[in-house]
């Protein structure tokens, strides 16, 4: 199905890239939230959770205000480089990133918190830096949780629609991710063209959710 190929490839590309950044930044935030205490910690937590609860159109609105060609951040970018993120697939990556980040932060934080704090402290007293401790102790013991978070984030990134429509627009051949393409086909009565994508999407999402559920079962290191 020709008309489905580009949206599928675009969705995969956008979601993979967004998830990559989500993992890096999400794990960092999750680490800080799980290991440190500081003033304003709960405010940061609220901010990072917001995209989970806000309607995607509100998220989209805020992103346009920030990154539009005359937006608070966008206009400086435009003045300096002539580049605007609007109507590009980069905007789709940004939207997917913003809406999936909370999944990674929440799941990651829970996973990191499930690691016995004494193990972390023991590692520190043995001279290992926080970074080394993170990679050699925390990550291996929370790997299932992190993986589940990544899978959920990817699934959410694939499904992003509202904010993407506002920032990237729905330009065939350039920014029409699968959800947007399905919408456009359905809106113009081309239901059969949308069908293949709907099937694929449903199947992939179900698969991902299943994997995430299996992974978040209790991590077993039953030596006690």
């Amino acid at each position, binding site marked *: 199905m020709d008309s489905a190929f580009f949206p599928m490839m675009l969705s995969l590309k956008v979601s993979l890239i967004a998830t990559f950044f989500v993992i890096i930044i999400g794990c960092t935030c999750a680490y800080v939230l799980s290991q440190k205490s500081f003033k304003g910690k709960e405010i940061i937590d609220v901010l990072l959770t917001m995209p989970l609860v806000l309607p995607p159109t509100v998220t989209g609105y805020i992103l346009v205000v920030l990154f539009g060609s005359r937006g608070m951040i966008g206009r400086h970018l435009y003045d300096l480089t002539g580049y605007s993120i609007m109507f590009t697939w980069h905007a789709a990556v940004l939207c997917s990133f913003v809406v999936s980040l909370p999944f990674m932060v929440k799941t990651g934080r829970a996973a990191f918190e499930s690691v016995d704090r004494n193990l972390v402290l023991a590692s520190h*007293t*043995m001279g290992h830096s926080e970074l080394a401790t993170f990679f050699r102790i925390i990550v291996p013991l929370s790997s299932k949780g992190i993986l589940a978070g990544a899978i959920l984030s990817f699934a959410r990134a694939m499904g992003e629609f509202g904010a993407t429509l506002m920032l990237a627009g729905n330009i065939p051949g350039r920014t029409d991710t699968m959800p947007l393409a399905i919408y456009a086909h359905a809106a113009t009565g081309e239901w059969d063209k949308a069908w293949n994508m709907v099937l694929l999407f449903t199947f992939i999402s179900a698969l991902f959710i299943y994997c995430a559920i299996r992974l978040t079962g209790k991590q077993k*290191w039953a030596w*006690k």
Partner: protein
Amino acid sequence: MGLEVRIKTKLDGFLLDVDWSMDDELVVLFGYSGSGKSMTLKTIAGVMRQDEGYIKFNEKVLFDRNARINLAPQHRSVGYVFQDLALFPHMTVEQNILYGAKGISKKVAGKDAAEMVELFRLSDHEKKHPHEISGGQRQRVAFARALMSRPDILLLDEPFSSLDNPIRLEMRRCLTNVLKKRFQIPAIMVTHDVLEAYMLADKILIYANGKVIQSGLPREVFDNPATQEVYELVKNRALYPEYLFAR
């Protein structure tokens, strides 16, 4: 010189206010739960914050509020044996021990680890995971790991509390052997087992409500409790037959 500990910290309404020192000996912090013993250990290790005071070991300053020195736990050169041992479940015995060897070249570390395995009688168990070995063996792994980096100070937080009695006796012997024969470093142990305190300590510090209310040689403290509180703490020693035959 030795180890000088002066800590004043307020935490959730609890005030820890202690000032004591020690040399290359085994000091026991003895008292009821919640009296500040573990807090002291954690503060010396650098994993709990300290409001005021200083911690010095010979020439090295680990913490000094006035001089604004606060070494991270990574740089304090302390060996810490946690109450629940904190062995890494995803690593083998060998890997756990090697993990303690930060800053030592791979070759030397390998040799040291082999020595530790020998010393703590863990041969034939190197490739096993913590959940596959016995309580006593796990204890020995925890010791080995803590001593791998040749720390300046050894901290033990109720190290034997999760063990059965016969093993406990064995472990006490193991500890004193290792300390006397191989590592002559200051060791601080927290326990609420009165017999253990008596048997192992070179010096005993009685903790109550965040303060040290009596200190001295075990025999001195036990035979001459300074206050009613201390008496309450040590009176059960008479129940242990070992006490009557000891020292």
